[in-house]
């Protein structure tokens, strides 16, 4: 069983209210109502997206950072239309308009189907709800860009949300661990005969992950920033309950008290308790 992978950090969350207010998010084309900054607002509605105005043409969306930053994970939220399409992630310390030298972090064709796979899979992993996630070796840059090849006649790229940031390997969860604990959201009626009628229903994951840290140092290293800081501030966070099964990744926000008590002896092992509720789950 792989460890729990967490991604709350997002270099594309810029501007007022974003994680990185000084980051500048832009795209090659930004028609009104589908501006580039929308990919960092975590709104999962398919009508809140960034897209191009020209069909069947290459298109990029880019974040120019306020300083050199490191990143190792990307998530394309559901609602994109890149399944089966080719794109690459680029990172540069040279000209931030990518007119000079840059690193191609990866160049892939997104899978069209959901298959089980580890988060480090070369092609990334399409999740059970249609998002796509991939972790890659750490890169640094002053700017990062998603570059999408021409997609075919009359087709324009559509991105609802994009995460590029530093994912952390939080460690192993305490067992027993339920990856799929959930609740059902719907308007329902139950008659005297026991018949239950429901309107449209949504299965929403809800639960608690308790992670055993390998040392108290691990808390200071990453948990305090990503979990207690970002996630604690209500920032949506991608949770991969098992890094070997990245297809089960989901987006969640905090739901209750997030805590990280020290272990026995003060500086011994620590745990972090992450109560979560799935954020804008996909309805049935």
């Amino acid at each position, binding site marked *: 069983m792989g460890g729990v992978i967490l991604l709350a950090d997002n270099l594309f969350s810029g501007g007022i209210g974003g*994680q990185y207010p000084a980051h500048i998010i832009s795209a090659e084309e930004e028609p009104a109502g589908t501006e580039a900054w929308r990919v960092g607002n975590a709104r999962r509605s398919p009508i809140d997206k960034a897209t191009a105005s020209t069909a069947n043409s290459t298109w990029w969306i880019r974040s120019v950072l306020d*300083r050199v930053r*490191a990143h190792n994970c990307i998530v394309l939220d559901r609602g994109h239309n890149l399944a089966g399409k080719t794109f690459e992630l680029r990172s540069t310390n040279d000209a931030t308009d990518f007119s000079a030298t840059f690193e191609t972090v990866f160049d892939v064709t997104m899978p069209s189907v959901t298959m089980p796979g580890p988060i480090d899979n070369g092609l990334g992993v399409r999740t059970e709800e249609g998002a796509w996630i991939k972790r890659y070796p750490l890169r640094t840059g002053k700017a990062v860009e998603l570059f999408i090849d021409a997609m075919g006649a009359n087709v324009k790229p559509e991105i609802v949300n994009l995460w590029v940031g530093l994912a952390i390997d939080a460690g192993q969860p305490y067992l027993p661990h339920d990856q799929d604990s959930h609740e059902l959201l719907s308007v329902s009626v139950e008659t005297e005969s026991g018949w239950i009628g429901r309107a449209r229903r949504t299965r929403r994951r809800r639960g608690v992950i308790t992670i055993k840290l390998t040392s108290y140092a691990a808390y*200071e*290293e990453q948990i305090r920033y990503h979990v207690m800081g970002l996630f604690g501030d209500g920032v949506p966070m991608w949770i991969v309950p098992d890094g070997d099964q990245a297809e089960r990744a989901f987006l969640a926000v905090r739901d209750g008290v997030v805590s990280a008590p020290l272990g026995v002896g003060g*500086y011994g092992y620590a745990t972090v308790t992450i109560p979560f509720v799935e954020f804008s789950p996909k309805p049935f």
Partner: protein
Amino acid sequence: MTVPRSAILLEAGGRTYERHGVAVRRLVPVYRGGEDWGEVFTRADAGTIASYVDREGYLRRALANVQRLTYEDLDGDGVREAACVALEAQRDNLITEPENFGAWSTSGGIIKTGGQADPLGGTAAYLLDDPDVAQLSNTALAFTATGDGEKALSLFVRQGSSARSETSLWDQTATTHRHRIAITWSGGVPVLATVTGSGTRYPVSRRGGSWWRIGWSATGVVAANDNRVFIYPAATAGAAADTGTLYAFGAQAEDATFPSSYMKRAGAVVGRAPDTWTLSWPRPPEALTIYAHFVELAQPTWVTISGSPRILQLGASGDTDPRLAVYKDVATDSYTILYDGGTLTGTSPVDLNPVRGDRIELCATLATNGAVAMSGRKNGGTIVAGTPSGANTLGAAWSAQLLSIGCLGATRYADVHLRSLIIASGVYTLPEMAEL
């Protein structure tokens, strides 16, 4: 004893990028002021001339004032897995045409073909072809040195058909090779050997695309003379002619004893500004432990422009006391910690006898009684402990609330690839700090 996390005051360097996504440890989100340390990093290049090596070994360029994260193979497995912050002094590339070998002289029928794949990911490299077994074909370019003495040279090479090539710093006025070296390929790896002259041959460094960077120095250079860099694509032992090819790119000559990272000249931009990195340090003098883990770039003797290169200094930029400095002592060729409280100065040196490319770990401590002590090890070997200084008085404040990393003022630059810098309150040992 484990160093408590509450004792850690600062973490910085390449490993911090891996753990925290930025160069200096942050525990609070940016939008909550998590990066308000007064950190200032500059490399005031006039253009995009600086370069670094990515994790695949490819050469990349960096804009002015952009910190470079270069990757090193610290465990010798051939994989560049360790991110390190490049901290280098100011340098100029004295070769006016480092990539355009078409502008170099042509002799002995050498054939120069451009448009070859280069380590920057472009096609600016050249294939140098010696087609004539009766002549020692070569290409050369003159350069102007500043001041007499030892000069550093470097070149990117990729194996062609030649089993053996040569390159040299030739003094046309004195008609002598200051340092001529042979490049012999063994299992795809270039091996350097001195043919004539003197200087240092530095370890070769692998790059992506089967490229290698070679570096060497030449002693006894007379700046006023006509100095030229020669490349002989094919030469047997004894300077006899041969046939064969060699790929070449990025020639560099520097007024220094060791080569620095590649500088791509562009018009008037001929040099790279120094990497300067400072943070605010709003703490008084106290018991401290400084752990510095880096790859040494300067070797064999730390000859500097002036002063001793700084790994770190607490206090004002200069020699204003009270201050604490961890530096390379050019007089003793040692890594030294110094604490000067204003009345007394205490030092503790340790001589690890490093060579270029060595992985160095230093543990420098300042005790509550003002005494300093240094220990260190090279390439994970035996820890060498320096003699601690005598007691001193901890002042009420540093001469300035300033921490300088890898630099001090305008001249004292570390020339290291910094893997990790950790400052903790209290006194700890090197193994304890290395565990962090």
